[in-house]
């Protein structure tokens, strides 16, 4: 870490430093300017280019099913889902209802794994940071979340590796299987397979209720407002001492409900397709998804329209084109200028109706009009609200999983033979662990001619667009107080509350999250 004194004539205390923040999936570099101890400017830069989209060009029509899960070790099932839905749409085939259930169950197991691991192994590990050494909850935070040692951390490792066994039973392995195919899934689950999945899910649910929530999912479901949340927290020791209770207490006492706001625009592509005939009901009256997609600007919510998605490259290391392009017109032509131009990231800048938008569990809660989060958001988004949405999303998922497992007909129909895919254009959208993910594909003459991927972290961690508007977490950083520039834990809280996954930002990144506070 280097520190240099500011110019003495300036009033603000300024210094320059590089502080890599690890524990993000991939390589990310954040540069912020500090003015009087607060972030006044922020730039998010992806520092790795893997070129996955271009690797796909000219390959076989189904090859996206094998290559794209390898984009990300932690959300390979989400990429597989998007890839197969894109091929479904090209072939015009609707997979059988039980194939949709199997796809959903695997994706949900991946979400259950990711939400809990990210919260406790990545986000809450910051609670053990030396910045909180004098805080009364610090010792307890260490006891719970110290990496590889904390009681919760160890428990999370042991439980999350169990829940992804569901993916292995249905799809052969996790991560990186390719069992979703256009027209359904490759496997035919037996009754024995489905019963094992039920047992694994029941075990995880019991653990999640006991350790994480400190109450039943049903009791948690009664929390429908900020006042309910306070009542829940004070109701009993089991609530206060659960990891959810501890998270809320620690976050409130340390001001995490007051930082990390952002643009207040939210996007969800829709969480989990509803199979025809299911008894699982949508949370927001959607006929297509468990939580229907949409775009929220403040309290104004409109249905998701894929035509409104574009990507800008004005500040990204790609050959320029004016304004934004729809992914069907998109291209990935790397153009590394270094720091001499306005370009500063390997991530492109996705926009919806030309606006930056935050995605992830909080966006899903907003767009699906979840009453608790609607109430909490009256004072704007924050680190606490964003992370809370992730931490309690499993409570939304597990009852639906149990229902879908009981609805599947063992040894039934899981695949509708698709005609050979030779020509066409299609896309697959899905809400992954970190939010809105889309694959846009064109196949011509039996091979892939275009493959454009927009990942959740591209939305959240995007650089500025052609109108120079900041990306969501760049914006969320503005105003964040940094008590100690040598240890800017607050910046880590804000960025990690978005659950960054930079390996996914396929045009780009991996590395540390380095923070450079530049001279003003």
């Amino acid at each position, binding site marked *: *870490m280097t520190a240099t004194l500011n110019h003495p004539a300036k009033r603000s205390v300024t210094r320059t430093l590089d*502080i*890599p923040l*690890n*524990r993000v*999936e991939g*390589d990310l570099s954040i540069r912020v300017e500090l003015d009087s101890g607060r972030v006044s400017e922020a730039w998010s830069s992806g*520092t790795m*280019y*893997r*070129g*996955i989209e*271009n*690797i796909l060009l000219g*390959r*076989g029509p189904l*090859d996206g*099913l*094998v*290559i794209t899960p*390898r*984009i990300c*070790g*932690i959300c*390979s099932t989400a990429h597989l889902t998007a890839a197969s839905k894109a091929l479904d749409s090209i072939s015009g085939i609707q997979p059988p209802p039980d194939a949709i259930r199997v796809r959903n169950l695997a994706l949900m197991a991946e979400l259950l794994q990711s939400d809990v691991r990210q919260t406790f*192994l*990545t986000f809450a*590990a910051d609670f053990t940071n*030396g910045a909180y050494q004098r805080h009364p909850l610090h010792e307890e935070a260490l006891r719970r979340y110290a990496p*590889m040692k904390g009681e919760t951390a*160890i428990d999370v*490792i*042991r439980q*999350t*590796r169990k829940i*992804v*066994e569901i*993916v*292995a039973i*249905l*799809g*052969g*392995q*996790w*991560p990186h299987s*390719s*069992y979703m195919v256009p027209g*359904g899934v*490759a*496997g*035919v689950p037996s009754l024995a397979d489905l019963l*094992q999945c039920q047992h694994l899910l029941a075990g995880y649910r019991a653990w999640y209720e006991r350790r994480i929530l400190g109450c039943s999912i049903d009791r948690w479901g009664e929390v429908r407002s900020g006042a309910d949340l306070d009542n829940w927290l004070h109701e009993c020791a089991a609530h206060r001492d659960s990891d959810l209770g501890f998270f809320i207490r620690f976050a409130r006492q340390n001001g995490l409900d007051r930082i990390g706001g952002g643009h207040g625009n939210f996007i969800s592509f829709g969480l989990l397709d509803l199979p025809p005939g299911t008894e699982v009901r949508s949370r927001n009256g959607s006929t297509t998804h468990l939580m229907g997609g949409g775009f929220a600007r403040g309290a104004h919510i409109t249905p998701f329209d894929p035509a409104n998605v574009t990507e800008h490259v004005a500040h990204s290391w790609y050959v320029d084109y004016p304004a934004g392009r729809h992914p069907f017109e998109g291209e990935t032509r*790397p153009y*590394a200028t*270094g720091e001499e131009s306005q370009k500063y990231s390997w991530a492109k800048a996705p926009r919806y109706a030309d606006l930056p938008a935050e995605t992830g569990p909080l966006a899903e809660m907003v767009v699906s009009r979840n009453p608790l989060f609607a109430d909490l958001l009256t004072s704007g988004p924050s680190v606490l609200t964003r992370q809370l949405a992730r931490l309690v999303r499993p409570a939304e998922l597990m009852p639906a999983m149990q229902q879908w497992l009981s609805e599947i007909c063992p040894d039934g129909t899981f*695949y509708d*033979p698709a005609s050979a895919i030779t020509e066409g254009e299609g896309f697959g959208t899905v809400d992954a662990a970190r939010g809105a993910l889309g694959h846009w594909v064109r196949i011509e003459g039996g091979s892939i001619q275009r493959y454009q991927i927009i990942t959740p972290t591209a939305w959240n961690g995007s650089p500025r667009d052609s109108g120079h508007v900041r990306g969501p977490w760049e914006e969320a950083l503005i105003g964040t107080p940094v008590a100690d520039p*040598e240890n800017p834990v607050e910046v880590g809280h804000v960025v990690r509350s978005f659950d960054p996954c930079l390996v996914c930002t396929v045009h780009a990144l*991996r*590395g540390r999250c380095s923070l450079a506070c530049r001279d003003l």
Partner: protein
Amino acid sequence: MAATLYWIQCGGCGGDTISLLGADSPDIVELLTLLDIEILWHPSISNNTHSQHQDLLERILAGRQNLDVLCVEGTIIRGPGGTGMYDAIAGRPKKDLVASLASQARFVVAVGTCASFGGIGADGAVEACGVQFLKWEKGGFLGAEFTARSGLPVVNLPGCPCHSDVIVSTLTALLGGQSIPLSKYNTPLIWYGLLVHQGCTRNEYHEYRVEDQGFGEKGCLFFHMGCHGPLAYGPCNKVLWNRRSSKTRVGVPCFGCTRPDFPQAYPFYYTRNIEGIPKQLPDGVDRAHYLAYKGMAAAAAPDRLKDRRTRV
């Protein structure tokens, strides 16, 4: 004294780390305790500050901090134009850090196919290669002559991802001073001396050449669906994934992800044929004999297989 481990992630997806987090008996927490391993640094786990990390690197590179194991995950990105700047850390190519650390380590372990052979990106503009191999050819990033302080070359643990048992047991053997014989691709023969095909529940369908031409069936996937089970060395159907299953068991062809040429240059889910017989035959098998044997086997196939009544 604790053995020390530094884990660096280069051009990859983090999947090998995710695989390791799924380890059981021992799980990763038990492994560290049992073997008395101190993780000096792992980008997904450590919560050292940046200055602590920089100080650590300085001490390792100056020889003041012992480094027993360097694990490299992800492909070595050398592009554009050999600069390595497609994968930079603090403005410097990460490949340079790999080279510096490798020169100090007692063992260098390439975890996953990308680090072993180049993997995803070896065909792309990023000019990627493995730590000591580029596909089938020895050399790669560190060069054919490289040996770690122990005298061993880079130990390759391919697989996309690498199975957690393989990572855990390799570390155990290396740190315990046990010898692990290597193949010519520097992969431990204990796990890469058997074919993915071995242990597949569809073996009987293979034996009698009862073939599938589409998804959702019980037959063998080798003849039409592009399965590399008889062509790829790896323990998938012996150790099983997540203690449960494997791709081939649920009707997904093996993509040969442990092979130095993964991802293959030709389309997945499709077997290239010469008159109905796969172009690539099981390792070491003579074509004429195979034709005769498979013809007879197909004729001998029992109805329970032809009717797909035998479960897999």
